[in-house]
């Protein structure tokens, strides 16, 4: 393995043993193996531990605000559909603060890879419950344990007719790699929810817990079957890993539809002055 996507001279701010290291490695490998061009790739991330990932990957990056990676990513695709765009962040980032964008980005079918590090906790802010925290999970804020229904990103994505819905566990990196690659290759919005142990603030959902409570889908699962995917999305203990659903019919993406011209970068689009003049003069 070469280190094509290593960024030089960076101080990685994660805790030793954190699941994020595995995800970082995974992403760099996939980018390299898929021969993705650095210069044409942008990782957009929010704020949180997960959202620090692009600082350690040698591509373009736009580090925005907590919860706001998806609309920024959408904007980039609107400006230049030729760029490969990844939106990345934590479970709080994407499903909490950014929940509304999650819904509507899926509805648009923006052609991006959406990577969510799901550690079932707010890491960077030191251990509050996240939308995916399991019931009973105790924290300094949830002193009597979480009472709300955990957010089920896969079921929600399916209910919005997402074209690619997947979940992996970073404890099973080989399996995760295959799924992430498939997400990159999918034409349209692709969700990859990655179970990522937070070794500091989540003593419940550990590497072992994720191992014990997940299983990889095998060829018996037909990822083209929406209803089967839906059933799988609600399965818990163990929770299925893999591509739950992929719409293999070529569905037209958001950015293919909104532009008059083809995929040319807006950087090269200036308006024809004489046409503008005529329009004005017609008033």
């Amino acid at each position, binding site marked *: 393995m070469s280190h094509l996507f290593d960024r030089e001279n960076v101080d990685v701010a994660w805790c030793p043993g954190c699941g994020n290291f595995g995800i970082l490695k995974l992403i760099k490998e996939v980018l390299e193996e898929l021969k993705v061009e650095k210069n*044409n790739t942008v990782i957009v991330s929010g704020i949180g531990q997960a959202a620090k990932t692009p600082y350690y990957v040698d591509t373009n990056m736009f580090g925005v605000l907590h919860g706001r990676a998806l609309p*920024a990513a959408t904007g980039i695709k*609107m400006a*230049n559909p030729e760029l490969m765009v990844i939106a990345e962040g934590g479970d709080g980032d994407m499903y909490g603060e950014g929940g509304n964008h999650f819904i509507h980005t899926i509805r648009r079918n923006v052609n991006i890879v959406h990577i969510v590090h799901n550690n079932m906790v707010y890491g960077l802010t030191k251990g509050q419950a996240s939308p995916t925290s399991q019931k009973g999970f105790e924290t300094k804020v949830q002193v009597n344990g979480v009472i709300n229904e955990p957010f089920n990103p896969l079921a929600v994505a399916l209910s919005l007719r997402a074209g690619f819905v997947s979940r992996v566990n970073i404890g099973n990196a080989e399996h995760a790699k295959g799924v992430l690659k498939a997400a990159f290759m999918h034409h349209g919005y692709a969700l990859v929810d990655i179970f990522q142990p937070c070794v500091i603030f989540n003593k419940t959902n550990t590497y072992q817990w994720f191992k014990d409570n997940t299983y990889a889908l095998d060829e018996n699962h037909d990822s083209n079957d929406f209803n089967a995917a839906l059933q799988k999305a609600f399965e818990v203990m163990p929770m299925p890993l893999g591509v739950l659903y992929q719409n293999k019919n070529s569905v037209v993406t958001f950015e293919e539809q909104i532009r008059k011209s083809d995929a040319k970068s807006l950087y090269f689009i200036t308006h024809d002055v004489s*046409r*503008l003049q005529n*329009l004005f003069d017609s008033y």
Partner: protein
Amino acid sequence: MKRFEKDFSESTHQVSISILIGGAAGLGVGTLEKILSDAFKSSGYYVFCTKEFMSRVRGGSNTTLIRIANFALQAPCWEVDIAVALDALAVEHMKDRYTKSTLLFVDESFSEKDFSTISVAMKESAKKFGSARYVNTYMAGVLFGVFQLEKITLLRSIEKYFQDEEINKEVAELGYETGQKIENITLPKLPNIDIKEVQKLHLMDGTTACGFGFLAGGCNMITAYPMSPSTGVLNFMASMTKEFDISLEQSEDEIASLMMTLGGWYGGARAMTSTSGGGFALMGEALSLSGMTETPAVIYLAQRPGPATGLPTRSEQGDLNLALYSGHGPFPRVLLAPGSLEECINYGYLAFELADKYQIPVIVLSDQYLADTIMMIGDIDFSSYEQRRYTLKSAEDYERYADTANGISPRAIPGFGKGLICAVGDEHDERGQITEEYKMREQMVSKRRRKSDALLKEVIAPICKGDGEIAIIGWGSSRGVIAEALERLDDKRLSHVHFAWIHPLSFEQLRVLDKYKYKIVVENNADAAFADQLKLHDVDVNVKILQSNGFSFFADQLEGMIEESLKELS
């Protein structure tokens, strides 16, 4: 009418007539405005139209004011010469604006006879043609007839705006005949006309003029959430996607609007969003991100009265403080507030230039009054607006936040050049990695401040008119109304100072105001936010004329207010 002749015609032979048309939403007041303004223009009059309407789609009571004159008009007046009530509620709704000489056109069925009412068979006649909604065309005909203007001009205008033009023309003709025959009324004298001059002009509202300004600035992307009174610009840009290559998306909320716009600029677009106060209040954090990441943004902020939902379809210059201070942490920004159609175009264009050049958010402040008011504008040469690019092709060792003398780091976009573009909302070093080093922080704070300094050389000074020692100072949309109020007052002591460039203000440029002995600030708000800005720049204000009742100022009322305020000086 009386007041009016006294003020204008004696000295300059300027004559104008004001017609107020009222009716429920859905009755076609808007259509009437379109036909009449077009027909009056074709007849050779200067035209000015403004509306006030309720936050509902049907019912209630709305009005449109149409002024015609033999000189360029740029303001509404409160008192009217002619009022046309399309329904009973309108008679009541417009009441405060009648004078003794106002002619009130009502349907023959109305009982109210307090004023010089003229009953016409509007309902009856409309019904004759099969639908109550022909009332508006009928009344267009009546007015044209009353004025004895050329019928054919009106019919041509009707052709332009109606699909079912034939029947509407018939209705108008009937109205016209009725109008011609009305007797025993003292009609305001129609001004002389100047067909040649007028026909060179273009009739449009502030929304459209801003839209043309943005297009001139090369805007090729817009992401916005509907909100009155800003939606017009979104609609305009949407219609323009048929003409130009523009990326457009209605966002799920205003946070997404600005975030998409920032994504757009990052990706290489010239992007904008449009909103009003409440939506803008949601954009603060993203605005701050624009400042920190040095990602350009253009925001069209059409103001309406707050707080909260306030009066959603009415007007106020109430968001200045918010536009100045929204977003956490200091960063350079520019605020522009056009006050005429020409300024809408110029400042709409400038917004994109400045955003791109300084990598900052630029906010264009409009309001419901400016957005919805139809005025006239001369020819514009669009070839004089160059759609530039301030970005470069990145070299391999490109650093997004390279420190430079004026604080502006050359901006590059992804996929265009060999370098990588790392834009970051945390404090960062030159290459765009997160840093917490306090010395690097100080360096970046200083870099951003130097951009603010550099911006000062772009500042456009206020326009000062007149040699009087008392300055009447306004900003943004009030330009025209202050100008007419001063014309009406015709007082040599008064000068007019108009600001369209609102922020940053140049301390040096403002010294020009020191020559005025007294300063009276006119603001369509309750907090006198601009007066505060003047004070912070050592310009002390003697009197503040403020209004925040949902209406823009009216030239005749403002005339009185200024007269009143002059008494406070001494």
